């Protein structure tokens, strides 16, 4: 065990663990490229990315929530409800109006989560569990448990059709959201405060950071992103269904955690989430091409997730490693700072 610890604490291994997203991504892409002929072609890549965009947008929102050490289980229900709004209200509000309203539904659901967690001081796990159940029931209530479809299937095609031979609209939105989030988290004071609140909420509050506002904002942002993802998915399929997004919450959390964000908060990055989403997209594409049943895919995803959090625990959180010589090395100090 000691020998294992020593190996784990060596600078080379720590660097590898620090940039594990890149390592996993490279392995996943090489594996899937060897299994799927033509994966590296631009058109295939663009299609795979388009399919991952919904998951990606949800993951972007969850990144901030997880960075703050909270959890949002309700994103799947928000996704379904805003999709239903975007399709079902088309006769009343027009296509663009309904889409905008769908995004607003996501925003409002985020506000609901924020009120529960920040104002009513309910633990985020239980609070978002409550809103998850509530919003899912709302989906079934307004649609009477039947999927609904819009009048004009051509309108939604704009979302998933590639723009000028490049990526589709929702892929662009996803990528832009990732880049903006990365810049905000890394280069602005407010973004740095997110890390501060996530690392130690009480200490951040004592230092004059309004922790509650950041947490409230994170839930609103998460709801907004899930709402946007739901509207896009419903437009692309021209359907609003009360069962949409029932598995997306778990997959999105997996993507964020694979990307190196810790559930305890305070560590993680937007680019890591991009890596996590790409890893899951590569695995999905490869396994589907090989027509492996989806439950094997669950085994793979679960194992990766488990291995990663175990590595993370061994490498960075044992009290011994904090006292060891290697903690003085530059790699070590980088690992400990929230800067990533």
């Amino acid at each position, binding site marked *: 065990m000691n020998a294992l610890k020593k190996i784990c604490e060596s600078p080379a291994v720590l660097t590898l663990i620090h940039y594990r997203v890149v390592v996993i991504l490279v392995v996943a892409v090489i594996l899937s490229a060897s299994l799927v002929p033509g994966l590296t072609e631009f058109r295939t890549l663009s299609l795979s990315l388009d399919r991952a965009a919904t998951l990606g947008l949800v993951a972007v929102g969850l990144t901030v929530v997880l960075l703050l050490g909270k959890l949002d289980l309700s994103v799947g229900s928000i996704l379904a409800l805003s999709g239903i709004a975007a399709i079902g209200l088309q006769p009343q509000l027009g296509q663009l109006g309904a889409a905008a309203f769908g995004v607003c539904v996501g925003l409002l659901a985020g506000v609901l989560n924020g009120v529960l967690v920040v104002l*009513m*001081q309910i*633990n985020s796990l*239980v609070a978002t569990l409550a809103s998850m159940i*509530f919003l899912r029931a709302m989906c*079934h*209530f307004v649609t009477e448990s039947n999927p609904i479809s819009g009048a004009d299937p051509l309108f939604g095609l704009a979302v998933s059709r590639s723009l000028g031979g490049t990526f589709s609209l929702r892929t662009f939105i996803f990528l832009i959201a990732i880049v903006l989030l990365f810049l905000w988290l890394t280069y602005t004071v407010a973004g740095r405060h997110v890390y501060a609140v996530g690392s130690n909420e009480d200490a951040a509050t004592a230092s004059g950071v309004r922790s509650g506002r950041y947490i409230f904002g994170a839930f609103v942002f998460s709801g907004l992103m899930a709402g946007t993802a739901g509207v896009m998915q419903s437009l692309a399929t021209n359907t609003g269904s009360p069962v949409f997004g029932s598995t997306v919450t778990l997959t999105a959390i997996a993507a964020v955690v694979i990307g190196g964000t810790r*559930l305890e908060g305070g560590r993680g990055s937007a680019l890591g989430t991009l890596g996590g989403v790409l890893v899951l997209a590569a695995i999905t594409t490869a396994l589907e091409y090989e027509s492996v049943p989806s439950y094997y895919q669950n085994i793979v995803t679960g194992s990766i*997730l488990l291995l990663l959090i175990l590595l993370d625990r061994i490498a960075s959180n044992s009290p011994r490693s904090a006292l060891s010589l290697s903690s003085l090395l530059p790699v070590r100090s980088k690992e400990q700072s929230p800067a990533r």
Partner: protein
Amino acid sequence: MTSAHTLPPRVTDEKRGRKLLGGIALPVGILALLIAGSVLSEQFLTARNLTNVLINMSIVGIIVVGMTFVFIVRGLADLSVPAMVAIGALLALGLQPALGSLPAAMFGVAAASCAGLINGLLIGYARLNPVITTLATGTIVLGVAQAAVGGVIVYGDSPGLQSFLTGRLLGVPVIVLIFLAVALGGHLLLSRTTFGRWVYATGANPDATKASAVPLRFTKGAAFWMTATLSGFSGVLLGLTLQTARPGVGTGYEFDAITAVVVGGVSLLGGFGNMPRALGGLLLVTLLSNIMVLNGIATESQGLVMGALIAAAVALDVYLRRRGGAS
């Protein structure tokens, strides 16, 4: 320390009013539901309907017993419950032709128990985050269970056990008796044994508990192991009574169990709550659901009420102890 289960340290004498409110809210709620139910529907207060309520409670109730331990030990929640229920049900039915019905059932429980052991080791000893760990192990276990039976619906072929489980013993359905036995065992374990004290101590103050040489890691791990084993057992019972099992059979059971425990007022912050409270919460939720069904409200739409109920229950819990320093 010895009175940890009778006198939570966060409630002091000057807040007797609040303590009283926390104590009577649940019985009053159940009583109000019983009255409202009998007013709204004449079928509600019949022996047949109330027996149905008890049977509906039993499968989830066995899981609730385990989940209560997880909550009190400050383990947040076990999200691998659906996978454990599914693996129990799938193996109990799928292995019947090969092993015979009773060994297959025991194998189902044993498989869930092994998976629970992994949960316990990872959460208790490796100190991983319980939410993400149980999420990951749940995904893996469900995948393995599906791979084992080929991802299809499994049918049972021995009606012997089914007729025993759905039958009655002294006028009480057997499945209810099993649930009551598990609940009683859980209650005694929590309130009368050293292990029970450890559970409260671990949840109330981990640092002080560790300094008192209580096996913190063992206690936390054991709570998760118990929950997985009980979920597997519950899955076996579910599979045997229905005589069919599909991989999604356990979906929602984790949330049902969490809802019951939370509504019962067992604190997510750990160290507070007991088995009668959790089961009272379960009774309240099941009665509420039953009343809604009798009044023609679709199961899918009941979440509108359930979600609000969870939020209200926890908000009350937080309000009652906010000034105890445990925000």
